[in-house]
């Protein structure tokens, strides 16, 4: 645990319903600065819903979420501020197909951060180099492979200089041979000290990179701990069953 670090994301008893269905049943956790937290769990367990609540793509109905000291409410300014601080990478990339790779990356810096085009483009090219595909800058997303698209998506999120990065199953839609290139970028990011919450099924990644693993089921955190603890000595029956099925 990383109690000594400044808490970056605080969630307290977060509950969320979709109609009759309760997706989150009181999620309480804290993610410290520079923490890498991997969230695992069966599908439908609410793990995606939880991280989507963190940047208010979904609106939680009870409980509190605060990011870097800003609480998520209906306040226009808070929502804007949090979205500036929290970058998100989606399972299906969600790149904008009508813009080039570089335009995808510079869009938010220009329109949200109000940077000039030239400085955004310089920064964008640096990010593309960081994710290893500077030569694709002028192509359209449709011309790239899945792995390349996801790396662009990561660069796009990084372009806003976020304090937290959320990854919603970033490798699930990829062919096996492309998963590694995306995971490598994520590892590099984790090593550079970014606060990250990663929903994934990549147990190797969790073992290697995570500071902490959260196991979700039925809309709540069933178990959490360090990777060693989690993978070698799970406490809860549900966790054991889940691990036995996927490992």
């Amino acid at each position: 645990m990383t109690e000594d670090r400044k808490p970056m994301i605080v969630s307290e008893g977060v509950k969320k319903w979709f109609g009759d269905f309760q997706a989150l049943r009181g999620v309480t956790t804290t993610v410290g600065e520079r923490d890498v937290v991997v969230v695992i769990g069966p599908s439908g367990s609410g793990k995606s819903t939880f991280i989507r609540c963190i940047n208010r793509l979904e609106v939680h109905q009870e409980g509190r979420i605060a990011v870097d000291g800003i609480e998520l409410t209906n306040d226009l300014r808070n929502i804007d501020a949090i979205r500036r601080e929290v970058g998100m990478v989606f399972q299906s990339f969600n790149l904008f197909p009508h813009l080039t790779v570089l335009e995808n990356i510079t869009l938010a810096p220009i329109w949200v951060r109000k940077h000039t085009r030239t400085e955004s483009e310089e920064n964008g090219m640096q990010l593309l180099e960081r994710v290893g595909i500077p030569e694709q800058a002028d192509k359209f997303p449709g011309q790239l492979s899945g792995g390349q698209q996801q790396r662009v998506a990561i660069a796009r999120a990084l372009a806003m200089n976020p304090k937290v990065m959320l990854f919603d199953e970033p490798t699930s839609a990829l062919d096996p041979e492309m998963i590694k290139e995306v995971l490598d970028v994520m590892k590099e990011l984790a090593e550079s000290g970014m606060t990250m919450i990663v929903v994934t099924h990549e147990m190797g990644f969790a073992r290697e990179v995570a500071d902490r693993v959260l196991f979700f089921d039925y809309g709540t955190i069933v178990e959490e701990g360090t990777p060693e603890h989690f993978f070698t000595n799970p406490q809860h029956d549900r966790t054991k069953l889940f691990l036995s099925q996927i490992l």
Partner: protein
Amino acid sequence: MVTPLEPQTGTSEHAKPPFWRNVTVLKWIAQIGFLTFFIWLFYILISQAVSNLEGTGIAFSWDFLAEPLGVLLGEGFNTSPGSGIEALAVGMTNMLRITASGIVAATIVGTIIGVARLSSNWIVSQVANAYIEFFRNIPLLVQIYFWQSLVLTLGELTVEEEGAAWFFATSKGIAIPWLTPRAGRWQYIALLVLGAFVTRWVYKWRVRILEEKGVETHAGSWALGVFATFLIAGWLVHPIMGLFGFLWSALAWVFGNVPVILFQLVFAALAAWLAYRFIKNFLDERRTPAGLAKLTDDDYFRLTVAGILGLAGVAFFLLGPGNATVSRLLGRDLTFSMNWGLEPIFSFLAEKFDFSTGLPLDFSRPEVVVPTRFAQYSPAVGKAFTPAFVSVWIGVTLYTAAFIGEIVRAGIMAVHRGQNEAALAVGLRRGQVLRLVVLPQAFRIVLPPLGSQYLNLAKNTSLGIAVAYAEVVQVGQTIYNQEGQTLAVFIIWMAFYSIVSLVLSGVVNYYNRKMQLVER
């Protein structure tokens, strides 16, 4: 595990944000602001129109509906209507006449064209293709004008032809033999409606036996037989339906003697009930197993608006304006010469169901009464169509058929590939494949665009005004040219066409939903 929130993590922000930063509040302010503006604008425009009309000396009023008009209409069940509302009723019937028959004809022609378009026979498919490309690329109005000019170049209607021919195609119009309804038709129709219900029941009953026992029960033939029995036997026994006459008289009495306040109460109760239903459904949707979920600000706004609307409805119907509206709806205070109240409808029906033994239908040939005129709409003289009717009818039918042809073709193509092969593989013949597999599925795909083509056809009948066909737009124009009540006539047009559209799309949606159910 629970880390208490530190002061610096934002407890100070926990309070509700100020309203100018609250997303929900802002959204509602924007909406209500715009709505207010919209209503205000509407009010301004209407009051401007009313004052402008007063300035021209013709104040807005509905009086022309009840007052006698001196207009003559080209055709219809009453060519010299006694009042505005009667004239409009003639126009509406004429419009519906062309719409209904046009829809049937266009569907038949269009389906043939669509299937022919896909024929493996080169000539057939090329002819169908030429048809589609030709008719859909020329404006309908040009086509209607063209048909009109063709009909007008047909030969003269001469005296020698009187009673001598079955068919007439002349510059005065086209006439064919026809079945004319007689006094017994009301009872006969009622019997047929009853027969349809019985047939449906018999069909379901046979199908149930088939499903239970697994033997062939000939459900289709049974149903056909039952309906045919009704059709034939009804010709003779339809007077027994006169029994319904008692029911109609009773209803007429009820509607004739119930005070208006009862209707007001009914409408008010309806408004309250609708609001209640909405609120209840709304809350039910958000209710969770653990009890009532936390409602968002948005939800509170919606509930409040629903409640206010419900109360407004109740107040509206119970107070003065509601009284006036209900009176108007029931035709009490206004003395329209055609009374639109419910009571006259039922008295009318009661009169028709009188155990009379007349024939329901009669066959007749066209007849030329005056040397140059057909005897139109008189009791027993076939069916005569004016040149205006013919040109509009041919125009909209052929034009719409071109579009329907394309739709049918696309529908069949959409089903074709795998389904066709699968059906052939299980041993069906080509004809059976088309009838049993392709067409039913194509119908489902075709239905929504078909519905919009029907709507287009209904709207396109308004081009009848170009050839002076007395449909609702032409009649309306005649009225406002005479009375100056443009605004009132326009409101009637909008209401009429909206209702026609609603009914048509309602029917299509009903079938569509039924189809979707079948799919499940």
